[in-house]
């Protein structure tokens, strides 16, 4: 196995860099060591705003992006459904769109002009036009709609492939025992989908806390009014590349790391528990 050494090299080389970098992060700045000053700086309004925005965004994406694709997958998987592959493909297409292009589209969809798609919709219902991206909650709505549009198709596929692994006998047995459609869904489908749900939940939370490009696209590089679209990564970007405070930027990164590690640990706990159940 002489060439395994080379694999190890190719892999460990970048990894070593990652480790080195993680130590660099701990140093506030390699020009001077300023101790915990960066951490003290975290107690400010912008940081809380970013954390709050990410949390809110993660929350709403979870609310939309788990139950909706799950139910759609069940419906799409039902025996009476027709043209399954066609619909699956159509719902999947948005996932191919880059966040940049999607951002360009949704920036215009949520445009301020009366003729923009959202305002036309409002017009149909007899409601006045809005400046969607100028307000905190409608701005968040735009972000969540953008995320939902891009992700429903992908999550649907996750659930769909998991559904196909559920043994048919379970449903047959339940039917014999007199369980209705709702009972079968709640007592068989949902529990059997737990592992994949845990996975989708994790990537959604990750996506929620690591979100940056979406907000960058909707509001541009100079940031949003009253920071309604500021995110943790956006804050890193702003501090690091606009104010050149690399040390503080790295500190924000570490906070983000702690959050994602916590999420991973929770996920491991959850999947570990499923292991015991089996």
């Amino acid at each position: 196995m002489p060439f395994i050494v080379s694999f190890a090299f190719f892999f460990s080389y970048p990894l070593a860099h990652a480790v080195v970098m993680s130590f660099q992060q701990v140093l506030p700045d390699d020009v001077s060591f300023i101790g915990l000053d960066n951490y003290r700086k975290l107690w400010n309004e912008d940081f809380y705003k970013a954390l709050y925005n990410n949390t809110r965004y993660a929350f709403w994406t979870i609310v939309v992006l788990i139950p909706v694709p799950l139910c759609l997958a069940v419906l799409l998987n039902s025996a009476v459904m027709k043209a399954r592959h066609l619909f699956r493909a159509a719902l999947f297409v948005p996932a191919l769109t880059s966040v940049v292009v999607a951002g360009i589209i949704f920036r215009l969809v949520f445009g301020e002009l009366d003729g923009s798609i959202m305002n036309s919709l409002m017009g149909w219902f007899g409601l006045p036009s809005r400046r969607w991206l100028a307000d905190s909650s409608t701005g968040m709505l735009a972000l969540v709609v953008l995320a939902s549009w891009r992700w429903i198709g992908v999550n649907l596929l996750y659930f769909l492939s998991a559904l196909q692994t559920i043994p048919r006998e379970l449903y047959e047995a339940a039917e014999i025992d007199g369980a209705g459609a709702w009972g079968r869904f709640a007592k068989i489908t949902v529990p059997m989908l737990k592992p994949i749900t845990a996975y989708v939940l994790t990537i959604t939370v990750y996506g929620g806390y690591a979100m940056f490009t979406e907000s960058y696209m909707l509001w541009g590089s100079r940031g949003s009014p009253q920071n309604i679209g500021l995110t943790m990564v956006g804050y890193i970007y702003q501090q690091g590349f606009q104010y050149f405070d690399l040390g503080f930027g790295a500190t924000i990164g570490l906070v983000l790391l702690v959050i994602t590690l916590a999420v991973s640990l929770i996920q491991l706990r959850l999947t570990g528990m499923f292991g015991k159940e089996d």
Partner: protein
Amino acid sequence: MAKRKHKLVSFLLVLLFAGLAIAALFPLYALLLASIKPASELFRYGLNVRLDFDVMTWANYKAIWAGEGGSEHYFLWYRNSLLITVTFTVLCLFLSSMVGYGLAMYRFKGRNLLFALVLAVMMIPVEIILLPLYRLSIDLMIIDTIWGVILPFVVAPLPIFFFRQFALGLPKDFMDAGRIDGCSEMGIFFRIMVPLLLPAFGAMAILQALFSWNNFLWPVIALRTSDRFTLPIGLTALLSPVGNNYEVLLAGSVLTLLPILILFLLFQRSFIQGLTAGGVKA
């Protein structure tokens, strides 16, 4: 009676999904439509979906072709994006397939540790290491070059993981047979295993190529000069400064999407496998 009920349910479901499919494709349709209208329409009415054949024009596409309205580098961006995507995907698949295969097929010291590291890296979002990576790229003098965009992510944990899982399902007997026939270890990998791993290559090629083609966060940091930009960055550059480059912005977005959509129609299965690769562990 039951049959008629089934038919009704089926009809309602198809109706529901047809509505959803339209909702999913609608924004892209709006983009396409806006790209063949003059930007003055966009400013006057916003992004709308009125079919108005009188105002439709190819002028925006012609403007891109002629390099007008801030798009003088558009085809350079296109070339850069293509170059980066192809180089990145080829290198990434080459390296991570070997690592994944090695992890699956050989027993060696530290194998479990190595695999644990792969999993650990998979759980750390890249956003966290942006700034250290930026400093490193400056030190390595690869900032603002194609390599600066490619190298940091060329060994990716998810493909390694995927190749490992896939290789675990391959029979080890083939390796022994190859050895008996005097094949080198490298020969076994390239002649016997790579053909068996082809479906995994397809899925991962698409995942990584799409990632690279659409990637924004790192390239926007790593690239500084306009003629070195990739498409996503070029497009955002059209958007920000004075904000009146919508003609080329929309047409440029459509041209960015086009190759992916065509590939998707051709290789739907690999796309779906690739983009849901993360779920294999669940």
